[in-house]
C-alpha cells in the first residue's frame, strides 16, 4: 500500500510540475460544450433535451486528449522497464497510473459539469444523476483508456489512434449515462442504468489493469 501511495504521489507531482496537460483537457471540455448553444441556437427546450448527451460526448472527447500520455513518458525514458523490474505487481502500478489520470482529468471534468449543465438549461432533477454517472463513468474511461494507452505506445499517431480504439469500447458508458440523465429529467427510475455503469466500473477496474499490464510486458519484450 505504501508503494502504491508513493507511486501515486510521484505521478501527481509530475502532473503538477507539468500542469498544462491537465488544464488543456479541462478547457477543451468547457469550450467544446460552449460551442453547442452557439451552433444549434439558444432555444432552452432544445438545449435541455440535448444537455446530457452534449456534456457526455464532450467529456469522452476531452478524456481522449490526454490518454495517450499515460505511459508514454515512462516508456520513452526507460522508467517502464524499471517498473516491470520490481517485484511489485505491474497491474497495481497500472491501476495507480489510471487513478492519477482520472484524478487529474476525469475529476475536474466532473466538478465543472454542473456549471455547464446550467448553461445548457438541464432539468434541475437531473443534476444528481449527472454527477453520479460522471462519478461512475469517468473512472471507467481512464481504466479502459489504460489499455489503449499501452497499445499505442511508440506509434506515431498515438493520439488519434487511441481515440479510434477506445471510443467504440466506451459507447456503453455514453448510452447508459445519457439514458439515466434523460430518465431522471422526466422523473423515471434510473437505477438500472446506474447499476450497469457501476458494474462496468467494477469489471474494468479488475480486468483493465491486468490487460494493460500484459500489453506493456509484451511491448518491452
Amino acid at each position: 500500500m505504501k508503494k502504491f501511495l508513493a507511486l501515486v504521489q510521484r505521478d501527481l507531482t509530475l502532473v503538477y510540475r507539468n500542469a498544462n496537460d491537465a488544464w488543456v483537457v479541462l478547457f477543451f471540455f468547457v469550450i467544446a460544450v460552449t460551442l453547442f448553444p452557439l451552433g444549434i441556437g439558444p432555444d432552452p427546450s432544445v438545449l435541455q433535451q440535448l444537455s446530457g448527451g452534449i456534456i457526455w460526448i464532450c467529456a469522452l472527447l476531452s478524456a481522449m486528449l490526454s490518454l495517450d500520455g499515460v505511459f508514454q513518458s515512462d516508456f520513452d525514458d526507460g522508467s517502464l522497464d524499471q517498473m516491470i523490474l520490481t517485484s511489485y505487481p505491474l497491474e497495481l502500478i497500472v491501476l495507480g497510473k489510471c487513478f492519477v489520470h482520472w484524478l487529474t482529468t476525469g475529476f475536474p471534468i466532473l466538478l465543472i459539469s454542473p456549471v455547464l449543465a446550467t448553461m445548457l438549461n438541464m432539468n434541475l432533477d437531473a443534476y444528481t444523476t449527472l454527477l453520479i454517472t460522471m462519478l461512475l463513468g469517468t473512472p471507467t474511461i481512464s481504466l479502459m483508456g489504460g489499455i489503449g494507452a499501452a497499445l499505442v505506445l511508440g506509434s506515431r499517431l498515438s493520439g488519434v489512434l487511441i481515440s479510434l480504439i477506445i471510443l467504440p469500447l466506451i459507447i456503453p458508458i455514453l448510452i447508459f449515462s445519457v439514458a439515466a440523465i434523460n430518465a431522471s429529467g422526466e422523473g423515471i427510475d434510473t437505477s438500472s442504468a446506474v447499476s450497469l455503469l457501476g458494474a462496468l466500473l467494477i469489471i474494468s477496474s479488475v480486468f483493465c489493469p491486468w490487460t494493460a499490464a500484459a500489453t506493456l510486458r509484451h511491448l518491452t519484450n
Partner: protein
Amino acid sequence: MKNLFFGTNLKVTKGGRCLAKDLEFKIESGNMLLLNGENGSGKSTLLRIMAGLSNPTSGKIYWNNKFVHDNLPEHFERITYVGHSTAIKSNLTLKENLKYWQEIHIGGKDISSQLEHSLEIFNLTTSSDLPARCLSSGQTRKLALARLMLKPASLWLLDEPTVGLDTAGLRSLITLLNNHCESGGIVIMASHDEVRVECPVHVLKTDNFKKG
C-alpha cells in the same frame, strides 16, 4: 553463499533477426562478466534477457539451477538493471528521483542516509534539490548509477555504464564494482571502454556466436 548464474543454448533475436545463437555464459559470486562485441551484436538484448525483461527465443537462464523465467518476481528482487535509458524524470529533483526508486523497489524502509551517501559518491550532493533536467548527460548517467547503492541486489546488469562519465565518475563506479564483487555479488556489464577492476573478469564476445 555462492551464487551461480548461467545460461545455455541461448538464441538472441531482435526484430525477427537472429543476432547470436548457441550462446552460453556462466558466472559465479565475486566475478564480473564483460560483454564485448560490435555495435548491434546483441549485447543489450542479452542483458534484457538476463534481467527477465525479454524472453530468449530459445535456451534457458538459471540462477542456482533454478529456471529464472519461472519465477520472475523473485529474479527481479535480486537484480539491479541500469540500461541505456536512464529512467530519470527530468521534472523531479535528484532526491525525488532516487527516493521514488527506493520506495518502489525496496519499500518504505527509511534509509535516507543511504540516499545521501549514494549522491555523495557520485559528487551530486550539491545539486540534490535541483530538477534532473538541469543535469548534464554525464551527471544524469551518474544519477542512474547512484541507484546501484540503494538496493541490496546480488546481480548487477549494466548496459554501457561508462558512457559520458568523467574520470572521477569512472573511479567511483570502479570502486562500487570492486566492493560489490568483494561482498559476493555478480556484475554483468556491456562496455566498450576498458574498466580496470580488481575482481576476476570473464569476457564474453557476442560476435563469436553470430549466426552462420
